[in-house]
């Protein structure tokens, strides 16, 4: 049997997901031995035309990381879909919108204005803004369009599986590759990670209080963190209870509260709404007059609870953005 043909591609991405593939370390050699990499623009010399030349469905599997913000990313998402049998959304950005997804809190115009004019480090006396077409002495050059908002991969094309995480943990990538090679993939649409909360596999689990009561949330710089005890129990905003497991607590092991990159379990539709619900309920205030003060200890609730998932939320974006 010939080796399965595999592609990797990045869209609106920071490059961290590509790094995660490199983090397979020597296991990457097994991957290379087992599969034929036919597209990987970040690491090898492939061009768009190489994909265009492929027959439809020629790639057996394609991993796509990053969200969709530009017309070029949209085009590439369609191309990857067309040319692969199995399309896997790789990482929080393609799964739920991820960090670039927070762009949906703002309008396209305000983002461009901020980046090209208003930010303190910008000096733009000529008021230059990116143009899709520019005439230069050497001819006309083109840029992709910066679209109105950020979309997840499955808001642009049909997606078969999701590898969650920012970036996905090596263990989950290895398991997914194994399942592909052994032809043991679960039903279409599955998130390829355990369907339980992170607390379940967190090394601090034993010290998690039975009845969680928080008088006020603290930020890591405000306390000396006990490196054994449950972070939420210490008053830190640890999103472990509402976040899917699979990372084995890489962050919580390093004294860093979970920020929710793996998204929700399958029972939850809107990660941010579910998270705000859980954290509002464990605050201890009873009197109506105290509520505002305890809620003030949740700094930037939208940025905290929708950090990775705004485009996949029920709001999708801010009104008027």
């Amino acid at each position, binding site marked *: 049997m010939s080796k399965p043909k595999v592609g990797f591609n990045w869209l609106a991405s920071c490059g961290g997901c590509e790094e995660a593939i490199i983090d397979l370390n020597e296991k990457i050699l097994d991957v290379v031995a087992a599969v034929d990499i036919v597209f990987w623009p970040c690491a090898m010399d492939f061009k768009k035309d190489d994909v265009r030349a492929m027959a439809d469905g020629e790639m057996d599997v394609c991993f796509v990381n990053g969200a969709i913000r530009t017309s070029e990313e949209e085009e590439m998402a369609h191309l990857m879909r067309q040319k692969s049998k199995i399309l896997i959304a790789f990482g929080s950005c393609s799964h739920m919108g991820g960090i670039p997804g927070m762009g949906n809190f703002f309008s396209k115009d305000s983002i461009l204005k901020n980046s090209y004019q208003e930010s303190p480090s910008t000096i733009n006396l000529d008021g230059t803004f990116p143009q899709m077409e520019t005439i230069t002495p050497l001819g006309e050059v083109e840029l992709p369009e910066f679209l109105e908002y950020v979309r997840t991969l499955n808001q642009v094309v049909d997606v078969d599986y999701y590898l969650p995480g920012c970036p996905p943990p090596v263990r989950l990538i290895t398991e997914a590759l194994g399942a592909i090679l052994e032809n043991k993939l679960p039903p279409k649409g599955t998130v390829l990670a355990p369907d339980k909360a992170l607390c379940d596999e967190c090394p601090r689990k034993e010290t998690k209080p039975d009845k969680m009561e928080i008088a006020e949330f603290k930020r890591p710089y405000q306390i000396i963190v006990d490196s054994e005890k449950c972070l939420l129990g210490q008053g830190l905003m640890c999103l472990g209870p509402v976040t899917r497991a699979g990372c084995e607590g890489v962050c919580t092991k390093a004294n860093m509260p979970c920020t929710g990159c793996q998204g929700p379990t399958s029972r939850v539709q809107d990660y941010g*709404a*579910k998270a705000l619900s859980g954290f509002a309920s464990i605050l201890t205030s009873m009197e109506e007059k105290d509520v505002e003060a305890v809620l003030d200890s949740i700094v930037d609730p939208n940025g905290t609870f929708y950090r990775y998932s705004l485009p996949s939320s029920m709001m999708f974006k801010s009104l008027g953005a």
Partner: protein
Amino acid sequence: MHNEPFEPRIVAFFCNWCTYTASDLTGISRLAYAPNVRVIRVMCSGRIDPQFVLKALRQGADGVLIGGCHPGDCHYQEGNYKCLRRIKLLKRMLAEMGLEDERVRLEWIAGSEGDKVQKVVNEMTEQIRRLGPLRLAPIPVPHELVEEELAMAGAEEA
């Protein structure tokens, strides 16, 4: 459709023990109120997941009204306090996302306060009528799916 006046659609979540009982009393007392609310009975205001509120807004409600027992009166001791913290936090977040404050409203209404149901529903209906319909950005769907739906719609018409 075009020139019809705008009639707000309000989804109301009322707790079984206080506000839902109150809304029964409103009826028994023959106190008429705006027909714009669709009441969903839940056992406790503490059962109201913020996801319910968002889903109602996403699926076409112009506003969401939540009714629970007065502080101290919760049948389950503290469900309404949880509800208060959740809805206040949700409202903070939605305000930052540009939603008008009047579209999500929390009221404590005891079983004996049939007249309060009337007052709150009428008031909220008028406020939302003034604001106009809620228009959330549609959630994008893959082009293939859209094309499939169009094909299906075409087949139905034919």
